[in-house]
């Protein structure tokens, strides 16, 4: 066991720390997506190589060598100091890696730079009313008409569709082909005529996701990633990227430390909740889980550096990371008791109600990006070698 990254990396860590200390004043504090502050912070981070680190400069990235240890240190230091890091969102975390891997040169030049700069916001149009976990059964259609695709159908749960400039969208281009082979991956603008967006209120009472309806939406023929019929493959190339980013143990550790603070502050009948052994016990249980997942993450990192196998350790991280986070936020609510019910504006709220909000939000993340049940299918089938789910004839339901 050798946990040191070596002196070169310790120096790098110090650099990152110094940068954060010097510059954190200009970091965004919850401003809107395209505000000047958000964009100039993003620009600064790209310049320093603290985000978009390995993306070539010609596509608006930093152009650095891949170095997973540096990437890790950056993540740790920004989380530790609770400073906003580089922009995320589905455009940056999902579309950009896809284009880098499978896009044409023209697509890379056109879409990646403004996306990284925070000027082009994307949404992900995958799920449909009848295609959730069983995504490959999607029916939104795109039919080629001259130089354009004509898209009809609807999407649901589309996060940030109301704020997005563009959508990357899975559509069925060949209804006769087997279900995984008739799908294509299209990119189009959200202000194209024929698109209607209806907001859906989620349980946190936010309007973050939407229903999106397409009627005869015309999309230039070349706005397709990969070939016609390869959309399933294109989308799966990056689903892993999304999963890796859900339930990040560094953020969870920051939340745990805050939770312990909370238990020191909150009182019931004048007694601090930290002095209540039942709550202390629950906190310690959660702490052990947080530690386990953090070290699990280090093990995965180490095996990537040393080229050893840790497939199972990696496969469990979305499942365990999101479930743990939901439990952790829920414990904070129990510690606050009735105050944990407060929602909205109230002087009694602690931390602006973030515990209540995150408790619910993480329930959403347990579902989104492949539900816990789907994760367990994956773990048992691909991790433990158990049989795949039996397939049923499509006609059986009719």
């Amino acid at each position, binding site marked *: *066991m*050798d*946990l*040191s*990254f*070596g002196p070169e990396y310790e120096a790098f860590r110090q650099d990152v720390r110094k940068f954060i200390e010097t510059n954190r004043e200009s970091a965004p504090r919850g401003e809107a997506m395209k505000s000047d502050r958000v964009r100039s912070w993003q620009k600064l981070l790209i310049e320093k190589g603290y985000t978009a680190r390995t993306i070539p400069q010609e596509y608006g990235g930093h152009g650095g060598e891949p170095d997973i*240890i540096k990437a890790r240190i950056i993540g740790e230091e920004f989380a530790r100091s609770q400073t906003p890091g580089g922009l995320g969102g589905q455009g940056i975390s999902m579309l950009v890696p896809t284009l880098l891997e499978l896009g044409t040169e023209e697509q890379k030049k056109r879409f990646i730079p403004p996306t990284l700069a925070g000027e082009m916001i994307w949404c992900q149009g995958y799920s449909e009313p009848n295609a959730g976990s069983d995504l490959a059964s999607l029916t939104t259609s795109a039919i080629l008409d001259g130089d354009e695709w004509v898209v009809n159908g609807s999407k649901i749960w589309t996060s940030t569709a109301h704020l997005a400039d563009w959508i990357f969208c899975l559509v069925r281009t060949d209804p006769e082909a087997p279900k995984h082979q008739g799908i294509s991956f299209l990119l189009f603008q959200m202000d194209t005529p024929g698109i209607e967006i209806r907001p859906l209120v989620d349980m946190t009472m936010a309007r973050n996701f939407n229903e999106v309806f397409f009627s005869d939406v015309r999309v230039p023929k070349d706005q397709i990633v990969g070939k016609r019929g390869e959309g399933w493959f294109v989308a799966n190339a990056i689903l892993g990227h999304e999963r890796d980013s859900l339930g990040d143990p560094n953020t969870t550790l920051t939340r745990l430390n805050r939770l*312990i603070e909370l*238990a020191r502050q909150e009182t019931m009948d004048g007694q601090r909740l*930290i*002095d209540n*052994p039942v709550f*202390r*016990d629950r*906190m*310690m*249980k959660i*702490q*052990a*889980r947080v*530690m*386990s*997942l953090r*070290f*699990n993450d*280090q*093990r995965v*990192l*180490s*095996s990537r*550096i*040393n080229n*050893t196998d840790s497939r*199972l*350790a990696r496969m*469990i991280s979305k*499942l*365990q990371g999101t479930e743990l986070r939901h439990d952790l936020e829920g414990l904070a609510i129990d510690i606050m008791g009735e105050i944990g019910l407060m929602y909205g504006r109230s002087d009694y709220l602690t931390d602006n109600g973030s515990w209540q909000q995150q408790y619910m939000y993480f329930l959403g993340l347990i579902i989104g990006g492949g539900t816990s*049940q789907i*994760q*367990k*299918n994956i*773990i*048992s*089938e691909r*991790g*433990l*070698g*158990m*049989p795949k*789910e*039996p397939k049923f004839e499509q006609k059986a339901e009719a």
Partner: protein
Amino acid sequence: MEFGLSEQQTALQDNVNRFLQEKAPLERVRRYSEEQQERADDIWDGLVELGLPALLIPERHGGIELGALDAAAVCECLGRHVTPSPFLSTAVLAPTAILLAGSEEQQNQYLPEIAAGNTTFGAALSEATGARRDAGVVATNSKLNGKALFVIDIYSDNYLVADTNNRLYVIPSDAHGLTINTLPQIDRTRPIGEIIFNNTPADALVADDQGSALRSVIDIGRIMIAADTLGASQEMLDQSVQYAMERRQFNRVIASFQAVKHMCAEMAAEIEPSRALLWYAAHTIDEDSKESHLNACHAKAHLSEVGSFVGKTATIVHGGMGFTDLLGLHYWFKRIGYNRQILGGPESVREEAARAQGLC
């Protein structure tokens, strides 16, 4: 950076596993427990031949001077094979105590003998992690009186004993004024007992200052027990997957039922991260880090919970067969049950974890 077992550690595990597979398979363990054998000398001799009692002992005392992570790697194998052996007390608890609290003379007296496999130890430490009933050992002028309960590895040549002032002693099992009774318990692979002391002369390990050696002994012991649970849990999961792939119901293997797959996935999802926690905890002992006490507590308590979950779930996957003696799955279930209570149950160990951080 390397987070995980080194090549040597993996090779050590391969050696131990290979020996246990060949020489101490379940049939051998069954004979030990059904016939209530006191010692399994054939198994212990083999472990001695592999050099295991010498693991933590410095080279100058004839040992091989490896660390807690190496010893934990061995314990994982012992748990996997539900091996009856006094490894925990002989190779880990006693040497750690003697190294930390023994004089040079005591070290010279005991350590080479342990390393060579010429003697075995049991450990009477239970009262230091929470005394039950009226147990407790009191020392006056190096004479011990009172009772120690739940003494680990009871059929041994010597005992490491903690008194109520957290001081440590060594006594031979044939010492004057000693009454030794075995206590029947669920895990029949690791006999425990009570010792009643009546003016028993003891060799005090005097270099200890205010129980810090005892604390270190308990920390490392907890990590070993957690490692044993990890090995036992992994084995139960592996057996579950294998059984589920063979057993057929409703014209299909039960491994094709999603309820069964999910039980297995949940076991894997609990085991994997706890392995990383355990490695890290053992590593901080080797680094002599300030966090090692906290980590040892967390490893012990967390693996106790994971182990209980796996023990229950794996048994359910096996259906009625899991409940019978035929298959022997209960050996692992009971091993995990023992590990949960010995040297501190999860609730009290978590309370210690909280105290270690100044939370109470």
